[in-house]
């Protein structure tokens, strides 16, 4: 008879086999709470889902029909690792709207710009490397940096964007500690989650600092064309080609379900990106690339972006009006484009801990902690105004006010605020 200690069942017989970096993947109660968002009774101010209903379906149908009749066999076939040449040429036109003039040779198509970020993480980040980022910063990028076991250092950020003085100071301090800095990651236009835009003066200073300090800037710009008034300053990549890697996307100006983004990188980095892309995917989806290419060739895509701008501007206004009506005492950013408001809660309220109560009240938001790698953001939350109708935005913020007031009352009861 065996005297072995019973091993039990942990439902994962391969637990000892995972790479160490698998530990960077985690679930959370917050993620589970978001399951209720799919119920129609719940007003979701949480996800940054583009309002694709505003995209006339006949436009995509026409693009599909013409793609299949003219290039169908190519669309259904493998493609190259760098992406479709015609689409890359058209992307030059899209980027020209942000002041960028580039060669088709330097563009790499990716499966959403998220995959571009992942490829860059894989190419550049070793465990322990430092990535500098805004406070707060995009949750999807933080997840990638964490996956590659990099350390994210959040820098001071205000209503003009990332503070160049803090950038200089942090570089100096980190290097004095012997740390290796690989990237400065920025969403310079209508940032996710802050809604803040980096000022032109700061862009130039940041580029100058990074060039001098030999630090790559990842300029992630999904929202730049979704401005509500004046256009934001031109992209940093338009005046700095060597130390800026530019990431663009069709997710916000067309549709995220197509999963097409792109990276514009210096030639040597581009070569490695193409190899990495081929290694990861063989090729990005030829089908969706060619569909987008047809759409760009045969429809008024700039007019469609203008339609999106009008819709999102109306929703931004609805969100700010509702904030002024129901939560006038709270500080919030006032974005001139994009999808998000960043709200600062009353002292003592923890946005993550409050979320279950919000779900009970049929409203969802994203807790600020999602946008920090260091546990920060507890007293903040992100409101996405892109998807709900203006009436639902008003209803959602009204419910949110009720939740915040109840939580404030509870904290007052316990004297913890």
């Amino acid at each position: 008879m065996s005297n072995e200690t019973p091993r039990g069942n942990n439902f994962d017989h391969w637990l000892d086999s995972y790479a160490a970096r698998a530990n960077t993947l985690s679930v959370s109660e917050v993620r589970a709470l978001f399951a209720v968002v799919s119920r129609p009774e719940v007003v979701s101010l949480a996800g940054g889902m583009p309002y694709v209903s505003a995209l006339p379906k006949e436009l995509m149908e026409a693009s599909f029909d013409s793609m299949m009749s003219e290039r169908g066999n190519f669309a259904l076939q493998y493609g190259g690792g760098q992406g479709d040449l015609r689409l890359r040429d058209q992307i030059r036109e899209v980027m020209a709207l942000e002041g960028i003039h580039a060669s088709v040779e330097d563009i790499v198509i990716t499966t959403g710009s998220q995959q571009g970020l992942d490829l860059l993480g894989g190419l550049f980040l070793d465990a322990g490397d430092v990535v500098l980022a805004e406070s707060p910063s995009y949750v999807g990028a933080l997840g990638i940096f964490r996956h590659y076991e990099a350390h994210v250092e959040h820098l001071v950020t205000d209503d003009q964007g990332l503070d160049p003085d803090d950038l200089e100071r942090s570089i100096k301090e980190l290097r004095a500690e012997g740390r290796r800095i690989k990237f400065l990651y920025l969403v310079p236009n209508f940032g996710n989650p802050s809604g803040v835009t980096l000022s032109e003066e700061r862009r130039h200073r940041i580029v100058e600092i990074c060039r001098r300090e030999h630090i790559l800037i990842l300029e992630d710009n999904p929202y730049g064309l979704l401005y509500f008034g004046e256009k934001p300053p031109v992209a940093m990549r338009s005046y700095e080609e060597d130390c800026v890697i530019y990431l663009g996307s069709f997710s916000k100006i067309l549709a995220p379900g197509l999963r097409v983004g792109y990276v514009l990188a210096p030639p040597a980095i581009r070569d490695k990106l193409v190899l990495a892309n081929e290694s990861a995917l063989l090729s990005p989806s030829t089908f969706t690339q060619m569909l987008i290419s047809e759409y760009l060739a045969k429809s008024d895509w700039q007019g469609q972006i203008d339609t999106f701008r009008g819709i999102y501007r109306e929703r931004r206004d609805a969100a700010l009006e509702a904030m002024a009506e129901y939560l006038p005492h709270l500080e919030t950013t006032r974005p001139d484009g994009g999808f998000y408001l960043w709200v600062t809660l009353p002292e003592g309220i923890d946005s993550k801990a409050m979320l279950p109560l919000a779900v009970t009240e049929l409203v969802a938001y994203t807790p600020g902690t999602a946008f920090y790698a260091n546990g920060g953001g507890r007293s903040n939350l992100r409101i996405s105004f892109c998807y709900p109708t203006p009436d639902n935005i008003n209803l959602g913020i009204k419910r949110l006010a009720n939740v915040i007031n109840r939580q404030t009352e509870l904290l007052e009861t316990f004297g913890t605020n």
Partner: protein
Amino acid sequence: MIPGSEKAHQLRVQILAGGISHERDISLKSGRRVADALTDAGAFVVIREPDEHLFAHIAEDKPDVIWPVLHGASGEDGSLRDILTLAAIPFVGATAASARLAWDKAIAKVLVSRAGIQTPPSVTLPKETFRELDAEQVLDQVSKHMTFPVVVKPARSGSAQGVTIVEDATHLSRAMIDAYVYCDVAIIEKFISGTELAISVINEGAGSIALPAVEIEPRHGRFGYDERVVAGEINYYVPARLDHSIVAKSEKLAIKAHEELGLRHLSRIDVIVDEAGVTWFLEANVAPGMTETSLMPQAIQATGASLGQVYLSLAEAARLGRG
């Protein structure tokens, strides 16, 4: 369909899963697992949301029996079960009245302790108590009369959401706030150190039986929400590694609690066995999790039976009004 053919006897089951609750995600996963197992066993299964189309879906699906795999409020608090009773549709699990009592952990503790089952000493405090009285003084009283560590938990919630083990009085108020986010009533309970057992009780129409107790050993000492839903975080032992007589006594206790609470076809009774071998009732689960890492499916499989056959017999028992 030809009368008398095998198909004519196929049991039609409508599974209700999802709902608006903090445990929606688990409910959806559980619902799909139950549906898969029942389908494998030969039933015709439809999964539906408990929403405004409920009655239309019942009319369309014509179920012989409904299985509410719903966690949290409306699924476990009895309200939906009341509606199903009014509509005269057989359903699996506790009646509305029993679910309402068992779902409230504070009430369940009172009911089982009246039946002679030990449950850790506790105090139940609605949020209003703190609002009406001075919160600091209330917490002082609690701290004076309870030995730390204590467990603070919402009276009505599941999957360990809002649960905190509090080591000393200074962290009590924060734990209360976290519990009140889920429910307006919180329980402060003496923390019992020992071995956690989950004992599933089923009744297929011939009386309540306890399935083999599942021993829970968290890898990092905590059996919270994340650990429950992520494979690899917990070691489960079936049979439990405790002395056979203690396990048998615990299983007997679970049957007694199940019957006292009137939970009919199925429940999961969570207990803890302290270092002296005493079994303490912690809570009853009216609609236990049925996901691939959940405790009740493990217990069923430990008997050698297939999930599908057991689920099918529970559904049949419900259809025939047995159990």
